Protein backbone atom coordinates (compact mmCIF):
# COMPACT_ATOMS: atom_id res chain seq x y z
CA UNK A 1 0.00 0.00 0.00
CA UNK A 2 1.34 3.40 -0.91
CA UNK A 3 1.33 6.16 1.62
CA UNK A 4 1.49 9.86 0.90
CA UNK A 5 4.62 11.75 1.62
CA UNK A 6 3.34 13.05 4.91
CA UNK A 7 2.91 9.41 6.08
CA UNK A 8 -0.73 9.81 6.87
CA UNK A 9 -3.18 7.76 4.88
CA UNK A 10 -6.11 9.87 4.07
CA UNK A 11 -9.59 8.55 3.85
CA UNK A 12 -10.53 8.33 0.21
CA UNK A 13 -13.74 9.96 -0.84
CA UNK A 14 -16.32 7.58 -2.41
CA UNK A 15 -17.56 8.43 -5.91
CA UNK A 16 -20.92 10.17 -6.03
CA UNK A 17 -22.76 7.18 -7.49
CA UNK A 18 -21.38 4.90 -4.82
CA UNK A 19 -22.38 7.30 -2.15
CA UNK A 20 -25.86 7.48 -3.61
CA UNK A 21 -26.27 3.70 -3.51
CA UNK A 22 -24.80 3.37 -0.04
CA UNK A 23 -27.16 5.93 1.42
CA UNK A 24 -30.27 4.42 -0.26
CA UNK A 25 -29.91 0.62 0.15
CA UNK A 26 -33.57 -0.39 -0.33
CA UNK A 27 -34.09 1.85 -3.29
CA UNK A 28 -30.85 0.57 -4.81
CA UNK A 29 -31.96 -3.06 -4.54
CA UNK A 30 -35.31 -2.27 -6.16
CA UNK A 31 -33.55 -0.41 -8.94
CA UNK A 32 -31.23 -3.34 -9.64
CA UNK A 33 -34.18 -5.78 -9.75
CA UNK A 34 -36.07 -3.50 -12.09
CA UNK A 35 -33.12 -3.20 -14.43
CA UNK A 36 -32.62 -6.96 -14.44
CA UNK A 37 -36.26 -7.59 -15.18
CA UNK A 38 -36.18 -5.11 -18.02
CA UNK A 39 -33.23 -6.86 -19.60
CA UNK A 40 -34.90 -10.28 -19.37
CA UNK A 41 -38.17 -8.99 -20.76
CA UNK A 42 -36.28 -7.26 -23.53
CA UNK A 43 -34.61 -10.48 -24.56
CA UNK A 44 -37.90 -12.35 -24.53
CA UNK A 45 -39.62 -9.65 -26.49
CA UNK A 46 -37.14 -9.56 -29.34
CA UNK A 47 -36.85 -13.34 -29.44
CA UNK A 48 -33.24 -12.55 -29.99
CA UNK A 49 -30.76 -14.50 -28.04
CA UNK A 50 -32.80 -17.32 -26.59
CA UNK A 51 -31.25 -19.19 -29.53
CA UNK A 52 -33.57 -22.06 -30.28
CA UNK A 53 -32.53 -24.03 -33.32
CA UNK A 54 -33.88 -23.10 -36.71
CA UNK A 55 -33.15 -24.13 -40.28
CA UNK A 56 -34.61 -23.16 -43.64
CA UNK A 57 -34.59 -24.99 -46.95
CA UNK A 58 -35.99 -23.91 -50.29
CA UNK A 59 -37.96 -25.78 -52.90
CA UNK A 60 -36.91 -26.52 -56.45
CA UNK A 61 -38.45 -25.93 -59.83
CA UNK A 62 -40.84 -23.55 -61.49
CA UNK A 63 -44.50 -23.73 -62.33
CA UNK A 64 -45.58 -21.56 -65.25
CA UNK A 65 -48.92 -19.87 -65.59
CA UNK A 66 -50.30 -19.89 -69.09
CA UNK A 67 -51.70 -17.23 -71.36
CA UNK A 68 -54.94 -16.43 -73.10
CA UNK A 69 -54.47 -14.96 -76.53
CA UNK A 70 -56.23 -15.01 -79.88
CA UNK A 71 -55.34 -13.84 -83.35
CA UNK A 72 -57.90 -12.88 -86.00
CA UNK A 73 -56.96 -13.12 -89.64
CA UNK A 74 -58.31 -13.70 -93.12
CA UNK A 75 -58.64 -17.21 -94.38
CA UNK A 76 -55.17 -18.11 -95.59
CA UNK A 77 -53.38 -16.12 -92.95
CA UNK A 78 -53.09 -12.64 -94.43
CA UNK A 79 -54.36 -9.41 -92.86
CA UNK A 80 -53.79 -10.68 -89.37
CA UNK A 81 -54.05 -9.02 -86.00
CA UNK A 82 -51.08 -9.42 -83.60
CA UNK A 83 -50.67 -12.98 -82.41
CA UNK A 84 -50.58 -11.75 -78.83
CA UNK A 85 -52.09 -8.40 -78.13
CA UNK A 86 -50.91 -8.55 -74.56
CA UNK A 87 -53.17 -6.37 -72.48
CA UNK A 88 -54.25 -4.35 -75.49
CA UNK A 89 -57.03 -5.29 -77.89
CA UNK A 90 -55.71 -6.75 -81.12
CA UNK A 91 -57.26 -5.02 -84.12
CA UNK A 92 -58.30 -6.78 -87.31
CA UNK A 93 -59.95 -5.34 -90.39
CA UNK A 94 -62.59 -7.74 -91.65
CA UNK A 95 -62.20 -6.76 -95.28
CA UNK A 96 -63.93 -9.83 -96.70
CA UNK A 97 -67.21 -8.83 -95.07
CA UNK A 98 -66.82 -5.26 -96.26
CA UNK A 99 -66.38 -6.41 -99.84
CA UNK A 100 -69.28 -8.80 -99.64
CA UNK A 101 -71.62 -6.18 -98.25
CA UNK A 102 -70.97 -3.73 -101.08
CA UNK A 103 -73.74 -5.37 -103.05
CA UNK A 104 -76.13 -5.68 -100.17
CA UNK A 105 -79.76 -5.07 -101.16
CA UNK A 106 -82.92 -5.11 -99.04
CA UNK A 107 -83.75 -8.71 -98.16
CA UNK A 108 -80.25 -9.93 -98.99
CA UNK A 109 -77.78 -11.69 -96.72
CA UNK A 110 -74.04 -11.87 -97.31
CA UNK A 111 -71.66 -14.34 -95.70
CA UNK A 112 -67.96 -14.13 -95.00
CA UNK A 113 -65.44 -16.25 -93.19
CA UNK A 114 -62.46 -15.28 -91.09
CA UNK A 115 -60.21 -17.21 -88.80
CA UNK A 116 -59.60 -17.10 -85.11
CA UNK A 117 -56.35 -18.74 -84.11
CA UNK A 118 -55.77 -19.69 -80.50
CA UNK A 119 -52.29 -18.37 -79.69
CA UNK A 120 -52.61 -18.97 -75.95
CA UNK A 121 -52.34 -21.99 -73.69
CA UNK A 122 -55.95 -22.69 -72.89
CA UNK A 123 -59.03 -23.63 -74.94
CA UNK A 124 -61.18 -20.64 -75.76
CA UNK A 125 -64.71 -19.77 -76.75
CA UNK A 126 -65.57 -16.63 -78.67
CA UNK A 127 -68.43 -14.22 -78.63
CA UNK A 128 -69.37 -10.83 -80.05
CA UNK A 129 -70.13 -8.51 -77.18
CA UNK A 130 -70.88 -5.31 -79.05
CA UNK A 131 -71.21 -3.72 -82.48
CA UNK A 132 -70.53 -0.02 -82.65
CA UNK A 133 -71.53 1.71 -85.89
CA UNK A 134 -70.38 5.14 -86.87
CA UNK A 135 -72.48 7.38 -89.09
CA UNK A 136 -74.57 10.17 -87.63
CA UNK A 137 -76.73 11.06 -90.63
CA UNK A 138 -80.35 10.03 -90.88
CA UNK A 139 -79.58 7.76 -93.82
CA UNK A 140 -76.74 6.08 -91.98
CA UNK A 141 -78.86 5.57 -88.88
CA UNK A 142 -81.64 4.14 -91.03
CA UNK A 143 -79.15 1.70 -92.53
CA UNK A 144 -77.79 0.75 -89.13
CA UNK A 145 -81.30 0.06 -87.85
CA UNK A 146 -82.00 -2.18 -90.85
CA UNK A 147 -78.95 -4.40 -90.55
CA UNK A 148 -78.94 -7.78 -88.86
CA UNK A 149 -75.92 -9.82 -87.96
CA UNK A 150 -75.15 -13.35 -86.91
CA UNK A 151 -72.00 -15.40 -86.37
CA UNK A 152 -71.11 -19.02 -85.71
CA UNK A 153 -68.09 -21.27 -85.55
CA UNK A 154 -67.99 -23.77 -88.38
CA UNK A 155 -65.85 -26.83 -88.30
CA UNK A 156 -65.58 -27.18 -92.06
CA UNK A 157 -65.31 -23.53 -92.94
CA UNK A 158 -68.58 -23.69 -94.87
CA UNK A 159 -70.42 -20.41 -94.55
CA UNK A 160 -73.84 -19.83 -96.06
CA UNK A 161 -77.55 -20.06 -95.42
CA UNK A 162 -77.14 -23.58 -94.07
CA UNK A 163 -75.22 -22.23 -91.09
CA UNK A 164 -77.94 -19.74 -90.19
CA UNK A 165 -81.64 -19.48 -89.81
CA UNK A 166 -82.80 -16.04 -90.67
CA UNK A 167 -84.36 -15.69 -87.26
CA UNK A 168 -80.97 -16.09 -85.57
CA UNK A 169 -79.73 -12.79 -86.96
CA UNK A 170 -80.08 -9.89 -84.57
CA UNK A 171 -79.95 -6.11 -84.75
CA UNK A 172 -76.65 -4.41 -84.06
CA UNK A 173 -78.06 -2.76 -80.96
CA UNK A 174 -79.04 -6.16 -79.54
CA UNK A 175 -75.43 -7.27 -79.29
CA UNK A 176 -74.22 -6.39 -75.80
CA UNK A 177 -72.01 -7.86 -73.11
CA UNK A 178 -75.07 -9.33 -71.42
CA UNK A 179 -76.67 -10.55 -74.67
CA UNK A 180 -73.68 -11.46 -76.81
CA UNK A 181 -73.59 -13.49 -79.98
CA UNK A 182 -72.05 -16.75 -78.82
CA UNK A 183 -69.99 -18.31 -81.58
CA UNK A 184 -68.88 -21.43 -79.75
CA UNK A 185 -68.95 -22.93 -76.28
CA UNK A 186 -66.86 -25.25 -74.12
CA UNK A 187 -68.00 -28.25 -76.13
CA UNK A 188 -66.39 -26.96 -79.32
CA UNK A 189 -63.76 -24.68 -77.80
CA UNK A 190 -60.78 -23.81 -79.94
CA UNK A 191 -57.76 -25.65 -78.55
CA UNK A 192 -54.35 -24.03 -78.14
CA UNK A 193 -52.62 -23.64 -81.51
CA UNK A 194 -55.84 -24.57 -83.32
CA UNK A 195 -57.75 -22.34 -85.69
CA UNK A 196 -61.51 -21.88 -85.82
CA UNK A 197 -63.46 -20.72 -88.86
CA UNK A 198 -65.85 -17.95 -87.97
CA UNK A 199 -68.79 -17.48 -90.28
CA UNK A 200 -70.43 -14.07 -90.16
CA UNK A 201 -73.74 -13.23 -91.79
CA UNK A 202 -74.96 -9.71 -92.50
CA UNK A 203 -78.44 -9.02 -93.82
CA UNK A 204 -80.38 -5.96 -94.82
CA UNK A 205 -84.00 -5.90 -93.74
CA UNK A 206 -86.36 -6.26 -96.66
CA UNK A 207 -88.30 -3.33 -95.19
CA UNK A 208 -85.27 -1.04 -95.05
CA UNK A 209 -86.41 2.57 -95.61
CA UNK A 210 -85.53 4.39 -98.80
CA UNK A 211 -83.44 6.81 -96.76
CA UNK A 212 -80.92 4.02 -96.21
CA UNK A 213 -80.30 3.77 -99.92
CA UNK A 214 -76.63 4.40 -100.86
CA UNK A 215 -75.73 5.03 -97.24
CA UNK A 216 -72.44 3.68 -95.97
CA UNK A 217 -71.37 3.04 -92.42
CA UNK A 218 -68.38 1.55 -90.67
CA UNK A 219 -68.77 -0.56 -87.59
CA UNK A 220 -66.53 -2.15 -85.03
CA UNK A 221 -67.28 -5.60 -83.72
CA UNK A 222 -65.98 -6.22 -80.23
CA UNK A 223 -65.22 -9.87 -79.69
CA UNK A 224 -64.34 -11.64 -76.50
CA UNK A 225 -62.32 -14.79 -75.88
CA UNK A 226 -63.14 -16.77 -72.76
CA UNK A 227 -60.98 -19.40 -71.17
CA UNK A 228 -62.52 -22.84 -71.13
CA UNK A 229 -61.13 -25.39 -68.72
CA UNK A 230 -59.35 -28.22 -70.45
CA UNK A 231 -61.35 -31.40 -70.30
CA UNK A 232 -59.83 -34.54 -68.88
Amino acid at each position, binding site marked *: MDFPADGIQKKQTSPAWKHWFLTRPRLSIMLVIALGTTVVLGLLGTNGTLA*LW*RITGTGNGT*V*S*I*GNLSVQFRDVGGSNASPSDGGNTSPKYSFSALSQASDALLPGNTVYSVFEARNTGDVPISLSFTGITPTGPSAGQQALTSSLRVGAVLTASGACGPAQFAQASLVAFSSVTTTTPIVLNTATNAISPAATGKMCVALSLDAAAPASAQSAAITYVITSRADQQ*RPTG
Partner: protein
Amino acid sequence: MNKLSKGIIVGGLGVALLLGTGGSLALWNVSATSNGGQVVLGDLNLVVPATGQTWERQTVAGTPGTWVPIADISTYKMVPGDVVRLTQPLDITLSGTNMKAELAIDTSSAISAPAGGTVPGSMLTVTSGWLAAPAGESNPTQVGTTNVWRFNGPLATTGGKATFKQQVTFSLSSTATGRTGALATIDLSKTNFTLNQTYTNPPAA
Protein backbone atom coordinates in the same frame (compact mmCIF):
# COMPACT_ATOMS: atom_id res chain seq x y z
CA MET B 1 -10.13 -1.13 20.49
CA ASN B 2 -6.44 -1.41 21.30
CA LYS B 3 -3.70 -2.39 18.89
CA LEU B 4 -3.49 -5.93 20.26
CA SER B 5 -7.15 -6.58 19.64
CA LYS B 6 -6.88 -5.22 16.13
CA GLY B 7 -3.88 -7.44 15.48
CA ILE B 8 -5.68 -10.56 16.71
CA ILE B 9 -8.71 -9.83 14.59
CA VAL B 10 -6.66 -9.17 11.45
CA GLY B 11 -4.59 -12.30 12.05
CA GLY B 12 -7.69 -14.43 12.63
CA LEU B 13 -9.17 -13.15 9.42
CA GLY B 14 -6.04 -14.07 7.55
CA VAL B 15 -6.15 -17.62 8.94
CA ALA B 16 -9.79 -17.91 8.13
CA LEU B 17 -9.13 -16.86 4.52
CA LEU B 18 -6.33 -19.39 4.19
CA LEU B 19 -8.53 -22.18 5.52
CA GLY B 20 -11.34 -21.14 3.26
CA THR B 21 -9.27 -21.31 0.12
CA GLY B 22 -7.70 -24.63 1.04
CA GLY B 23 -4.45 -23.10 0.02
CA SER B 24 -1.17 -23.68 1.65
CA LEU B 25 -1.81 -25.16 5.06
CA ALA B 26 -0.93 -28.56 3.48
CA LEU B 27 -3.52 -30.71 5.14
CA TRP B 28 -4.37 -33.92 3.32
CA ASN B 29 -6.54 -33.63 0.31
CA VAL B 30 -7.48 -35.80 -2.58
CA SER B 31 -9.18 -35.36 -5.94
CA ALA B 32 -11.22 -37.72 -8.04
CA THR B 33 -13.25 -37.47 -11.23
CA SER B 34 -16.85 -38.45 -11.17
CA ASN B 35 -17.93 -40.97 -13.74
CA GLY B 36 -21.02 -39.00 -14.71
CA GLY B 37 -21.09 -40.11 -18.34
CA GLN B 38 -21.47 -37.71 -21.23
CA VAL B 39 -24.08 -35.24 -22.24
CA VAL B 40 -25.22 -35.68 -25.82
CA LEU B 41 -26.93 -32.84 -27.62
CA GLY B 42 -29.91 -33.43 -29.83
CA ASP B 43 -30.23 -32.28 -33.40
CA LEU B 44 -32.59 -30.37 -35.63
CA ASN B 45 -32.12 -30.41 -39.36
CA LEU B 46 -34.07 -30.10 -42.57
CA VAL B 47 -32.98 -30.98 -46.08
CA VAL B 48 -35.18 -30.36 -49.11
CA PRO B 49 -33.95 -32.83 -51.73
CA ALA B 50 -33.73 -31.54 -55.28
CA THR B 51 -35.07 -34.82 -56.62
CA GLY B 52 -37.99 -37.03 -55.80
CA GLN B 53 -40.67 -34.43 -56.41
CA THR B 54 -43.90 -35.46 -58.08
CA TRP B 55 -46.67 -33.26 -59.49
CA GLU B 56 -50.35 -33.90 -60.00
CA ARG B 57 -53.33 -31.90 -61.20
CA GLN B 58 -56.99 -32.12 -60.45
CA THR B 59 -59.20 -33.22 -63.30
CA VAL B 60 -62.09 -31.13 -64.52
CA ALA B 61 -64.07 -33.68 -66.47
CA GLY B 62 -64.89 -37.22 -65.48
CA THR B 63 -64.75 -37.35 -61.73
CA PRO B 64 -63.87 -33.75 -60.84
CA GLY B 65 -61.13 -33.50 -58.29
CA THR B 66 -59.40 -36.72 -59.25
CA TRP B 67 -55.63 -36.34 -59.11
CA VAL B 68 -53.72 -37.34 -62.20
CA PRO B 69 -49.95 -37.13 -62.68
CA ILE B 70 -48.28 -34.28 -64.55
CA ALA B 71 -45.53 -35.86 -66.59
CA ASP B 72 -43.38 -32.74 -66.94
CA ILE B 73 -44.10 -29.73 -64.77
CA SER B 74 -41.68 -27.62 -66.81
CA THR B 75 -44.04 -27.71 -69.78
CA TYR B 76 -47.28 -27.52 -67.82
CA LYS B 77 -49.11 -24.19 -67.96
CA MET B 78 -51.45 -23.42 -65.11
CA VAL B 79 -54.57 -21.43 -65.89
CA PRO B 80 -57.20 -19.89 -63.60
CA GLY B 81 -59.18 -22.62 -61.91
CA ASP B 82 -56.31 -25.10 -61.99
CA VAL B 83 -55.26 -26.96 -58.88
CA VAL B 84 -51.87 -28.65 -58.89
CA ARG B 85 -50.18 -30.53 -56.09
CA LEU B 86 -46.52 -31.02 -55.32
CA THR B 87 -45.37 -33.97 -53.26
CA GLN B 88 -42.07 -32.90 -51.75
CA PRO B 89 -39.81 -35.23 -49.74
CA LEU B 90 -38.37 -33.58 -46.65
CA ASP B 91 -35.48 -35.12 -44.75
CA ILE B 92 -36.15 -34.11 -41.17
CA THR B 93 -33.98 -34.67 -38.14
CA LEU B 94 -35.44 -34.12 -34.72
CA SER B 95 -33.62 -35.62 -31.77
CA GLY B 96 -33.34 -34.61 -28.15
CA THR B 97 -35.48 -35.66 -25.24
CA ASN B 98 -37.47 -32.48 -25.14
CA MET B 99 -37.20 -31.62 -28.81
CA LYS B 100 -40.29 -30.07 -30.34
CA ALA B 101 -40.46 -28.16 -33.57
CA GLU B 102 -42.73 -26.50 -36.09
CA LEU B 103 -42.38 -26.71 -39.84
CA ALA B 104 -43.64 -23.67 -41.73
CA ILE B 105 -44.03 -23.13 -45.47
CA ASP B 106 -43.73 -19.62 -46.78
CA THR B 107 -44.80 -19.10 -50.38
CA SER B 108 -45.44 -15.38 -50.15
CA SER B 109 -42.63 -14.60 -52.59
CA ALA B 110 -43.17 -17.54 -54.89
CA ILE B 111 -45.43 -16.02 -57.53
CA SER B 112 -43.83 -13.55 -59.89
CA ALA B 113 -45.59 -11.38 -62.42
CA PRO B 114 -44.33 -11.11 -66.00
CA ALA B 115 -42.53 -7.93 -67.00
CA GLY B 116 -44.87 -5.00 -66.67
CA GLY B 117 -47.63 -7.08 -65.13
CA THR B 118 -49.00 -7.58 -61.67
CA VAL B 119 -50.39 -10.57 -59.89
CA PRO B 120 -52.57 -10.02 -56.84
CA GLY B 121 -51.54 -12.12 -53.89
CA SER B 122 -55.08 -13.43 -53.57
CA MET B 123 -54.77 -15.16 -56.92
CA LEU B 124 -52.71 -18.02 -55.56
CA THR B 125 -53.84 -20.12 -52.63
CA VAL B 126 -51.45 -22.57 -51.01
CA THR B 127 -52.47 -25.36 -48.67
CA SER B 128 -50.52 -28.29 -47.35
CA GLY B 129 -50.84 -31.81 -46.06
CA TRP B 130 -48.86 -35.03 -45.85
CA LEU B 131 -48.62 -38.42 -47.40
CA ALA B 132 -48.57 -41.31 -44.95
CA ALA B 133 -45.83 -40.93 -42.37
CA PRO B 134 -42.77 -43.16 -42.59
CA ALA B 135 -42.89 -46.39 -40.59
CA GLY B 136 -42.76 -45.78 -36.87
CA GLU B 137 -43.42 -42.07 -37.17
CA SER B 138 -46.44 -39.84 -37.00
CA ASN B 139 -47.08 -36.86 -39.24
CA PRO B 140 -47.05 -33.49 -37.54
CA THR B 141 -50.29 -31.84 -36.53
CA GLN B 142 -51.55 -28.71 -38.22
CA VAL B 143 -51.52 -25.47 -36.30
CA GLY B 144 -55.01 -24.15 -36.90
CA THR B 145 -55.62 -23.90 -40.63
CA THR B 146 -52.20 -22.51 -41.40
CA ASN B 147 -49.28 -23.99 -43.28
CA VAL B 148 -47.50 -24.54 -39.98
CA TRP B 149 -47.12 -28.12 -38.78
CA ARG B 150 -46.09 -29.14 -35.28
CA PHE B 151 -43.90 -32.04 -34.25
CA ASN B 152 -44.63 -32.70 -30.59
CA GLY B 153 -41.48 -34.62 -29.86
CA PRO B 154 -38.35 -36.12 -31.32
CA LEU B 155 -38.62 -38.59 -34.16
CA ALA B 156 -38.74 -42.23 -33.15
CA THR B 157 -36.42 -43.46 -35.88
CA THR B 158 -32.86 -44.20 -34.79
CA GLY B 159 -30.89 -41.01 -35.00
CA GLY B 160 -34.09 -39.00 -35.06
CA LYS B 161 -34.01 -38.74 -38.83
CA ALA B 162 -36.77 -39.67 -41.26
CA THR B 163 -38.08 -38.66 -44.67
CA PHE B 164 -41.58 -37.25 -44.66
CA LYS B 165 -43.53 -36.41 -47.80
CA GLN B 166 -45.30 -33.13 -47.68
CA GLN B 167 -47.99 -32.25 -50.19
CA VAL B 168 -48.29 -28.61 -51.16
CA THR B 169 -51.34 -27.65 -53.20
CA PHE B 170 -51.36 -24.57 -55.42
CA SER B 171 -54.77 -23.26 -56.50
CA LEU B 172 -55.07 -20.50 -59.07
CA SER B 173 -58.22 -18.50 -58.48
CA SER B 174 -61.00 -19.06 -60.99
CA THR B 175 -62.33 -15.56 -60.35
CA ALA B 176 -59.53 -13.85 -62.24
CA THR B 177 -60.61 -10.90 -64.36
CA GLY B 178 -59.31 -10.15 -67.82
CA ARG B 179 -55.90 -11.71 -68.25
CA THR B 180 -54.76 -11.14 -64.71
CA GLY B 181 -51.83 -13.34 -63.85
CA ALA B 182 -51.20 -14.51 -67.41
CA LEU B 183 -47.61 -15.59 -68.01
CA ALA B 184 -46.69 -15.35 -64.33
CA THR B 185 -44.51 -17.98 -62.73
CA ILE B 186 -44.46 -19.79 -59.42
CA ASP B 187 -40.81 -20.07 -58.48
CA LEU B 188 -40.34 -22.76 -55.88
CA SER B 189 -36.81 -21.63 -55.16
CA LYS B 190 -38.52 -18.75 -53.40
CA THR B 191 -40.60 -21.12 -51.30
CA ASN B 192 -39.11 -21.56 -47.87
CA PHE B 193 -39.56 -24.59 -45.66
CA THR B 194 -38.47 -23.57 -42.17
CA LEU B 195 -38.08 -25.87 -39.22
CA ASN B 196 -38.18 -24.00 -35.93
CA GLN B 197 -37.46 -25.56 -32.58
CA THR B 198 -40.14 -24.76 -30.05
CA TYR B 199 -39.33 -25.20 -26.43
CA THR B 200 -41.36 -25.32 -23.29
CA ASN B 201 -39.90 -26.26 -19.95
CA PRO B 202 -40.54 -29.92 -19.23
CA PRO B 203 -42.43 -30.68 -16.01
CA ALA B 204 -40.31 -31.12 -12.92
CA ALA B 205 -39.24 -34.72 -12.36
